[in-house]
């Protein structure tokens, strides 16, 4: 047995010990203080452990768990990390993470601005989801005829730039929309590359 193979066999065991130590350290930290960022980091850690557990179950006990679960869980971890870092930014700037920096007007029963401000969240989620039929066509029919990698690559680059813009300007609608765009456009591009 080579060194790499033996390391691969032993690694899950010492990782289990590390997980127990990290868990204890989190408990010690929460007994002293319970800041929101560290609680969120703890949630991300729990998701990570759950993902590793799924891998172990699949590998050693041959349990049938869809592979997509790993990707979804990792997406959850990354989004939590982004949220934690934004919370830290917020803690230092002490600014409210609002929809847009506009002066508040006196409250009225019905305002078009309020409707548009709320409605944009529906549009921000619904419009990237319109790409799903395209993804289904590519992946189910295993054909990317008529799909331009250059165009979708440019869309992906633009979505990443919009995402950075959303973070810099703290616009939740732009952030939510472009996180969805990045994930869905990655599916289209990968399908276009694989089934071209």
């Amino acid at each position, binding site marked *: 047995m080579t060194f790499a193979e033996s390391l691969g066999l032993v690694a899950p065991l010492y*990782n289990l010990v590390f997980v127990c130590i990290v868990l204890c*350290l989190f408990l010690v930290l929460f007994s002293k203080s319970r800041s929101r960022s560290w609680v969120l980091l703890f949630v991300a850690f729990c998701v990570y452990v759950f993902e590793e557990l799924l891998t172990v179950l699949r590998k050693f006990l041959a349990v049938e768990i869809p592979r997509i679960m790993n990707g979804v869980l990792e997406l959850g971890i990354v989004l939590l990390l982004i949220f934690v870092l934004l919370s830290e930014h917020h803690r230092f700037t002490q600014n409210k993470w609002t929809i847009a920096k506009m002066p508040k007007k006196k409250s009225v029963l019905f305002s078009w601005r309020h409707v548009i401000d709320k409605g944009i969240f529906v549009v921000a989620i619904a419009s990237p989801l319109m790409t799903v039929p395209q993804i289904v066509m590519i992946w189910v029919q295993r054909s990317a005829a008529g799909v331009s990698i250059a165009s979708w690559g440019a869309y992906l680059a633009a979505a990443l730039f919009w995402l950075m813009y959303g973070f810099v300007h703290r616009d939740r609608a732009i952030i939510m929309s472009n996180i969805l765009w990045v994930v869905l456009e990655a599916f289209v591009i*990968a399908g276009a590359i694989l089934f071209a």
Partner: protein
Amino acid sequence: MVNPYYVEGIFQVANLLLSLVALGLACLLFFRYKTPALRPWRFVTVGIVLFMAVIAFGALRSFGVYESPYVTHVLTGLVLLVLMAALFVEIRRNR
């Protein structure tokens, strides 16, 4: 039926791009605010970089480009070590 490894791989590519955004945010945090309160978050940033490497190796494995029997396990161990260091520093800071 689509190969489930491919779907996992695409998710990992998307996750890799999003973790790049997380890394950018972490760097922005350090360059903008130089305070001891951020010391544990330096370790968390190293953890993000290692986590990105785990995702990248996972994506390569999913697409059948490269597979190693130990790299992902070792990287996971390193992520946990870095997280331990961050927690140690934060606990000491709160003492």
